[in-house]
Every structure is written in structure tokens, then in C-alpha cells.
């Protein structure tokens, strides 16, 4: 038993092993990677045609920007949310159905690291995918983003990421406990995304949606990133957006980790961890 490292650092270093594992698994499904990118571009292509029907006057910014620029940011953030959440929910479920969850849980690895490790690849890949998507779409569809907005937009995205982790952890705890529920989680994600103004300006929705969007972390993140990438709003606006997101993300993440620990403890008490 020599050569083992202990403590928080050792636990954190295990995340590298999870990343490598999932990278190798994903690379073994090359077709899935290609189809994911094709779907993403097909979605952007559809919205590029829709943008020809939408007069810029309807977009926030009073005609200074196109619908394709508006919706590209929405697609990027909503896609990040959807993929991140889906992976968080399915990662533990997949470990359960593969039969590998118990194998992991008999190693000296904390439940939090197992959860985080199971999604670490996506936590890194999905933001990367989002940024690459924005860059490619801006080239292909001739969408011009404000260069000064890149860094603030990335920081807003970073402040938003823990919200997705937290929501995913809560959902994962629910699935671990009830074995089902991914449909309900998908609907919740859709409702949150749709009413955030990701695809359509909030002005088109009933009046009560706008106040909800102002406290919806997805809405806050999308509005903030649009302001940076399309409007070039500057650092002050970015910091205001980040200040709104950080507490929401922090609370959601803590709740998520707590819910997951409770769910794991329940499974150990009942002895049903390996049952799917």
C-alpha cells in the first residue's frame, strides 16, 4: 500500500483519471462526436434562415444587431446548459447501469469526487465546445462579435458554470433516489431555457416572463453575454452580471452537493446503490 497520496489534493488529483477515462471512451465513439457538431451547425443553419424573417428592430439593441447574432449566443449558452445538465444527470445513472458505480464506491474515493469525476470531462469539454461554436459561427455566418467582450463573456460563463453543476447534482440525486425523472428534469431545463430569452427576445413573451428571466440564472448569463459580445457593454456591466450569478451559482452548487451526499447516504443505508 505504498505510494498512496492522501487528503484533499489526492482526491482532486483523481479527477485527472476520470477525465482521461471519459476522453478515451468518447474518442472510441467518433461518430457521436461528429454527429454532435453536425446537429449544432444544423441548428445554427435553421436559425440563420429564421433570421431572414426577423427584422432587427425586434431585437434588443434597436436594430443594431441581427437575429443570428442574437440567437447564436442563446444557442451556445442553452446548449451548454442542456448538454451539461444531461451529462450530470446521466453520468451516475450510467455508472449504475454499467455496474461500475459499486466498483468505484469500494475504492477510497469520496462520493463528491465520484460525482464530480463522472462529469469532469463534460465540465471541461462543454465550455470549450461553446467557445469553439461561437468562433466558428461568427466566421461561417459572418456574425461580428465585439472583441472586447470575449474575456468578460468568458468570465460570465465561468460564473454560470457552478449553477449548472449544482442543478445537475440536484437532478442526479433525484435520479439516484427515484431511478427515474430525467424526463421531468429535461422539461425543467427546457422551461428555464425557453423563458430565459435564449431563442427569442423577451419582448415577445407575456409580460410576467421578463421579471422571472431577470432572476433566472440562465437568463442572467445569456443577457450578460449578449451585452458583452454584441453590445460591447464593458467591464462594469460584466461585473454586475457576475455579482448576480455568483451567489445563485454558489447556493445551487452547495445544495446540489448536499442533495447528492444525502442520496448516496440513503443508498448505503438501504443497500440499493448497485440496483438500477
Amino acid at each position, binding site marked *: *500500500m505504498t505510494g498512496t*497520496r492522501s487528503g484533499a489534493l*489526492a482526491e482532486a488529483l483523481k479527477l485527472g*483519471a476520470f477525465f482521461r*477515462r471519459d476522453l478515451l471512451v468518447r474518442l472510441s465513439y467518433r461518430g457521436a462526436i461528429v454527429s454532435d457538431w453536425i446537429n449544432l451547425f444544423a441548428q445554427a443553419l435553421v436559425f440563420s434562415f429564421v433570421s431572414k424573417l426577423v427584422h432587427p428592430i425586434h431585437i434588443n439593441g434597436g436594430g443594431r444587431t441581427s437575429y443570428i447574432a442574437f440567437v447564436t449566443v442563446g444557442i451556445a449558452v442553452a446548449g451548454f446548459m442542456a448538454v451539461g445538465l444531461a451529462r450530470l444527470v446521466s453520468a451516475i445513472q450510467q455508472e449504475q447501469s454499467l*455496474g*461500475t458505480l459499486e466498483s468505484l464506491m469500494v475504492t*477510497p474515493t469520496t462520493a463528491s469526487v465520484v460525482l464530480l469525476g463522472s462529469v469532469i470531462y463534460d465540465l471541461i469539454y462543454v465550455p470549450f465546445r461553446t467557445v469553439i461554436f461561437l468562433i466558428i459561427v461568427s466566421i461561417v455566418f459572418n456574425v461580428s462579435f465585439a472583441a472586447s467582450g470575449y474575456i468578460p463573456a468568458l468570465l460570465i460563463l465561468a460564473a454560470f458554470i457552478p449553477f449548472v453543476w449544482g442543478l445537475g447534482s440536484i437532478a442526479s440525486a433525484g435520479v439516484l433516489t427515484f431511478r427515474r425523472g430525467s424526463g421531468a428534469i429535461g422539461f425543467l431545463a427546457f422551461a428555464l431555457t425557453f423563458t430565459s430569452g435564449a431563442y427569442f427576445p423577451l419582448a415577445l413573451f407575456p409580460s410576467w416572463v421578463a421579471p422571472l428571466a431577470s432572476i433566472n440564472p440562465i437568463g442572467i448569463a445569456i443577457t450578460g453575454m449578449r451585452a458583452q459580445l454584441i453590445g460591447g457593454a464593458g467591464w462594469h456591466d460584466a461585473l454586475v452580471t457576475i455579482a448576480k450569478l455568483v451567489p445563485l451559482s454558489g447556493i445551487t452548487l452547495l445544495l446540489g452537493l448536499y442533495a447528492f451526499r444525502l442520496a448516496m447516504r440513503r443508498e448505503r443505508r438501504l443497500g440499493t446503490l448497485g440496483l438500477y
Partner: protein
Amino acid sequence: MTGSSSGGANPLSAVLDARDVTRSFGDKQVLSGVDLRVGAGRISALLGPNGAGKTTFLRILTGLLLAEGGHVSVAGIDVGQDPMAARRHIGFFPSADRTFYNRLSGLENLAFFGRMYGIRRQEALARARKRLVDVGLSDAVDQRVGLYSHGMQKRLSMARALLMDPPVLVIDEATDGLDPEGARRVQDLTRSIAADGTAVIWTTQRLDEIRGFADAVTVLDQGRTTFQGTVEDLMLKSSARGYLLRLRTADATLDDDASRRAAAALGDRGKLARVGTDREHFRLDLEEHAVLGEVLADLSATGVVVLDCAQQRSELEESFLRLTTART
């Protein structure tokens, strides 16, 4: 409980010490005061019919499940209090088939699980390679686990359980579904690991594989310990021994008169019963005090010719069935 031996392992030096372990699921009591102590270098077999509580007990030993009562320690560490520390000292061989990542190679799988013990990748790879050779998978190091046969996956499970040289090895149905050669290989490996000082808990339903293999036996039935002792002690618990006989008279199959004469010659030493409608085949159940040779000689003296005599169950199997309530 009909025995108290721990199979020669000194309880004071037990690497695994489980005392009075209880556990229920709802109203069903699954474990009722189960004890097990295994010393370094000893192989302790855990027997029991389906539903006896073996797997529940193993899950408590590995910290996957919490006991409601009692105490389990591994290498002096309380599993209930500090499961993370205890797991560093346990290698677990699960009975389930699918416990690996099928898209990864055997080597990558083992390296991944090695890193879950906090070791660096290079060390994990070195350990993984060594264990893959030990279990005879050196030709399949880079092959995807999804392409492994059932027997290869079992051997990979063994390699994973041994990866960190644990002082306690918990093995759940290792030979289930293996061909005789594969089963022998796993047993040989276990024997050599035990010889190096590892305490082994070996769960099985293949009774005859523990003869000459396990140092101690614990029989569980409906969550209770019904026997603890050595394999030899367990065989002594055998009473009725069953044999399948082919009997004839000199010129014909046994008629009712000849059958009655044979039964009378047997007396209180056992029972003789025809098997189905067959006129030649009989089942002979001998009591503990009966001597098979004498019985066969007495049957011959009545004019019955014994064409064949085959033992139907081993003493181990007889003992096991006697100690457990399941008769299926």
C-alpha cells in the same frame, strides 16, 4: 451455531474481525448476529444458499452498506466509523459480470481503478501490468474489456482486487461460470496470495471447491451462522449418505419379494428406494453408523447382485444441506 472454531486463525491477530453483525431490510431480518474472524494468510469460505445473507454481509464488510448492529474492523480500522480508510485495506472481487468500462482496455481499466487509491498513473500502470500477467491476461492487456470473455472478465476482476496488495481480499462467487481450468487458475492465485499473508473471504456455492482450499468455513442460513469450523468439521456433520445402486437378481430385475428381502437385510442402517419406474436403479441412504461395504455384502447375501454403486452427493454437500433449510 454448532461450532466455534475460527479455522485455526488466531482471533487476536484477525485482520478482518466482524462481530454480531445485524442488518434488516424493512421487516425482513437479513443478518442476525453474524461473526467472522479471519487471520492473515487464512482462507475463510462463506457458504449459504441463495438469500442466506452472504452478499449483504460482504457489502457490509466493504462499506457499501451500513450494519445496523455489531462491529466490523479491517486491519484494526472500524469500517462503520471510517469506511474510506478501511477500503484502502480491502480488495473486492464482485460477483457481477459487468463492473468494468467496456470501451477501455484491461490495462486502462486497472490503471483507472488504481488511481482511485491515490497512486500516480505510472505506478498504477506498473501494478496493472504485473497483475494482468499474474492472472494470465498478458496477451489481452490492450484489448477492450467489452471483447473479453466471461472468464477473462473474472480474471480481470481478480487482478483489480489484488491491484493494491490488500491485506484483506473479499471474493464473491469467483468461479461462477468459469470452466474447470479457469476456476483452478483463480483458486491457485488465491492460494498463493493467501500464502503471502492476505486474509481471504471466499464466497461460493460450489461446495466441493473448498475441500483442500479453505482453512475455515462459515455456513449462513437465513441470516444466521449455522456452522463455523474447518472443512473436516463440516464433513463430520454429514449423516445420511446417498448412493445410486444398480441392482438385479442373478436372472432378472428385482421383483417386490427381492426388494423386500434387500430392505430387510439393510435393517436400521438406511433406506433403499426404487428410483422412478426403473427396475434396476435404487437410491440407498445410509445412516451415520452404517458401513457401505458391510451393507453391500449383506445385500449380496440375499441374492441381489450389485452391478454399480455411485455416491450421489459429497459429504460436504450433505452437511451443507443439513445445515441450511433450503432443500431445492
